[in-house]
């Protein structure tokens, strides 16, 4: 059913809106396109999606508005029920959980951040952050202590008595993040958390977010409509269109070999050299070819640009972060990535 290392796995999930979606879904095959379905008076918000989110991995779901990404994340957290297929969270089928078990799961394992923050306007920062703890019945003192911890973690200490409306947008989202972290969730959903912020703040929040993830190593589902944001943050990206996943892969692979024309359109204007890492270009080493000092596989082609230009070897060995050789890159290929070679 589910590979042991995945935190969430989603099997042929469907979400249809319309008069009798279950019956309709039973009557169609998975070959039905979005237009076929809407011709029958139904909206296919999520169409036959199968995904796995591994433990400690950040999966970014990218898509334009109306592509079904927000619906998908709500299916994964069972804010809405799937019409067909199933979602497993740590081995449990979400659809089979009772209301009580579902609440229990949310109280112990899940956290979610919302695009428009979803803060309760008549509670202070502290009360907002402590809200999930209050819901599971922790006593006031323990609540306060834990809430202060996460408030500090997101850099809002000193503001805990403020009300949401007294904070800037970026600060409000920090409260949202703190609240979602208060119960120490294993799974973290973020639904376009930075989209409502202006570009400079967005950038700052992304850095902040990467810092937190480094520290906490949660399993993350991150929704965005911003391709650059996806590239910056993701371990893997799932690109959605009309409710279906077009491609799900690492950022490197997506920019190097887009699976469909739709995905290619996104990658066209991307500076691939900033995305592609040396380890991805590395090919198995033969006996003779790669000699000399290896380069760090975790560096992007852009970061290696100077070295690549000055390099005399055609094949350059690549090492992982422990110094083990993992392969070699072809200089010409790397330069193609750097300058955009002939197709």
């Amino acid at each position, binding site marked *: 059913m589910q590979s042991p290392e995945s935190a969430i796995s989603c099997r042929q999930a469907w979400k249809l809106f319309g008069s009798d979606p279950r019956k309709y879904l039973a009557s169609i095959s998975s070959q039905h396109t979005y237009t076929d379905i809407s011709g029958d008076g139904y909206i296919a918000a999520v169409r036959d999606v199968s995904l796995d989110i591994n433990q400690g991995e950040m999966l970014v779901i990218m898509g334009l508005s109306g592509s079904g990404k927000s619906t998908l994340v709500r299916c994964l957290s069972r804010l809405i029920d799937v019409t067909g297929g199933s979602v497993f969270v740590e081995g449990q089928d979400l659809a089979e959980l009772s209301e009580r078990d579902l609440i229990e799961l*949310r109280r112990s394992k*899940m956290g979610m951040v919302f695009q428009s*923050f*979803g803060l309760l306007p008549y509670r*202070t920062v502290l009360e907002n952050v402590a809200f999930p703890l209050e*819901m*599971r019945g922790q006593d006031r003192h323990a609540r306060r202590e834990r809430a202060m911890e996460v408030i500090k973690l997101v850099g809002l200490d000193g503001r805990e008595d403020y009300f949401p409306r007294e904070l800037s947008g970026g600060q409000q989202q920090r409260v949202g993040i703190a609240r979602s972290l208060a119960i120490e969730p294993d799974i973290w959903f973020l639904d376009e958390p930075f989209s409502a912020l202006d570009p400079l703040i967005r950038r700052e929040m992304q850095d902040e977010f990467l810092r937190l993830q480094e520290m906490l190593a949660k399993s993350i589902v991150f929704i965005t409509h911003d391709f650059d944001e996806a590239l910056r943050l993701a371990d893997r990206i799932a690109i959605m269109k009309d409710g279906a996943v077009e491609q799900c892969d690492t950022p490197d692979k997506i920019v190097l070999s887009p699976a469909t024309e739709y995905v290619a359109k996104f990658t066209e204007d991307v500076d691939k050299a900033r995305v592609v890492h040396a380890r991805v270009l590395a090919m198995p080493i033969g006996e003779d070819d790669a000699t000399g000092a290896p380069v760090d596989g975790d560096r992007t082609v852009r970061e290696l640009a100077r070295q690549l230009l000055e390099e005399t070897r055609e094949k350059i060995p690549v090492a992982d972060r422990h110094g083990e050789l993992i392969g070699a890159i072809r200089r010409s290929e790397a330069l193609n990535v750097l300058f955009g070679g002939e197709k």
Partner: protein
Amino acid sequence: MSIASAEKSIGAITFDDVRVGQLIVAVAAAIALLRFQLPDFLVRPPDWLVWPFADWINFVFVFLKDDLGFIHVTRSIASVVEWFLDVTGNLLYGRNRWPRIGPLPWTTVAVTAAVIGYALNGWRLSLLCGGTFVWIALMGQWKWAMETLSVIVVAAPVSAILGVVLGIAAWRRKTVEKILNPLLNIAQSLPHFAYMIPVVVFIGVGPKAGAIVTMIFAMPPMIRMTLLGMKKVPPEIVESGKMCGSSSWQLLRHVRVPTARTEILLGVNQVIMQCLAMVVLASFIGMPGLGQKLLQLLQALKIGRSLEIGITIVLIAVMLDRCSKAWVVKQPKHFERGTPWHVRYRILVAWAALAVATFALSLLWPLADEIPRRHALTVSKEADLLVDWFVRLVDPLTQWLRGFLIRFVFIPMRDAYLWLPFISVLAFWAGLGWMVGKWRSALVCLGYFGLIAMSGWWDRAMITAYMITFSVFIAVALGLPLGIWASRSERRARFVLLVCDTAQTFPSFIYLIPVVMLFGVNDVAAIGAVITFALVPFTRYTIEGLKDTPPELVEASSMSGASAWQQLWKVRFPMALPTIAVGFNQTIMFSLFMVIIAAFIGTQDLGQEMQKALSSTDVGKGLVLGLCVAFMGLMADHLIIRWSDSRKKALGLE
């Protein structure tokens, strides 16, 4: 061509439907012209058409009351209410009941009000609140005002809580909403008196009956606002609550209700204002207090004294309105860490100190405890003199106006309305209905007015209808130019809107004082009161409609070289028309309410019959009359709102 087809697709009214409607109206006119050739049963509703609704209602009420023993239930509810009234009565005016510590010194009550005002919105509101109570005490009206307030203090919270509970029930269960919605529609268009008669039957007369009728009357807006607020809670907030692991009760208690705070508090504001309006009118069923005093003084034509009471009622109304509205917009503010508690709670501390001080003062100095009648100020003599002088000054004008209106307008108009064959009136409304909403609306209009014909009160209803027509016509004729004038500048608009807002908070009873002063007790005074009362919403909506024209349209028309006049008639006015129509609708509603209240200064319409039903506690008759009034209002509401909505859609305003 494409526009026409687009309109068809959204179900808008097409040219042909308007034609059909016009045709029906033309037929109605033709029938009216042929009156003398018509058989009698088409002129007056014939006996077989008049159903004994009143008897049926009475039968049901007797069955409920005696056979089912419902009266014991209502009596025991009433005794609970009475216990609360005893407590507030003891505290505020020293009723000899538990806890027997009252009456509180007037100075203590006044500083308490002032502190509440300060806490809600600073010094100005504080002055208004404190000042109101100082005025009441100085004018020697303390006991009456406290009798009135002691009921509001009980009725408003009960009404608000029940309203919130029912509103949440309606939000949770679609069926409850479906049942409540038509009931609320009728409840909100029933005249005040219609509520009183059943209460008199089940509870009796006096303060507890007044309190209970007030609670029932004030509840509908609370239910509506709660439902609206619950529906408006943003889905993301609900989702965030769910993801925090809230159970459905926690979600309601901690997430939905607090987020709907604004709407719920607006509902509370409406509840309080409705309570005040009703508690003043409840004097008709023996509720003591300001209303009863005003009623007696007005009937005795003691204008000066009734003006004094009128001012008190107005002050209380404005105070309650400002306070509850300030509560709506009040936002929580945080204190810096380390703020000592006497700073955090400085208002509470100040109140405690002032209360203790005034208490001590009242022990030392009796006048700070209670101002007896002989020490009270009064301006009634001076006011009477002034009023006399003024009335005598304008007497030639009012005399002439009165004579002219009665002889040349009211009597001919009334006779004309009574002359109309009922069948042609029904056809006329059906035709108008067809114009705004095809056969569906035609049937709705026919249904409402048909029931009036079947009620047996056709003639009385036509008299009410003529008074409404005339009052609304004059209100529009005055309100439209006033609204246009006011909307020409931001400052004027703000000023007139402020006046309208304030005037709208006055209990309807107040409007009778000036007209009785000018015209005495007769039809002209009644219609004068109706006009004044109905003018307020119309002016208000006219200003708002004209002011809210999208600015880019105004700029575009300026750049197209429109003169101010052209801009008004070609751009602003058409865009404002749907909003003005809503104002027109309220004008009709307000007129209906007022015309019934004004009955006690002498009219011969449904209101007068309602008064009779009230004094003989005839539930059936009272409710039938009330429903006649409600149906007129609901029909007008249906026609106007349908038209306004389709117009708004066509203009892309919504």
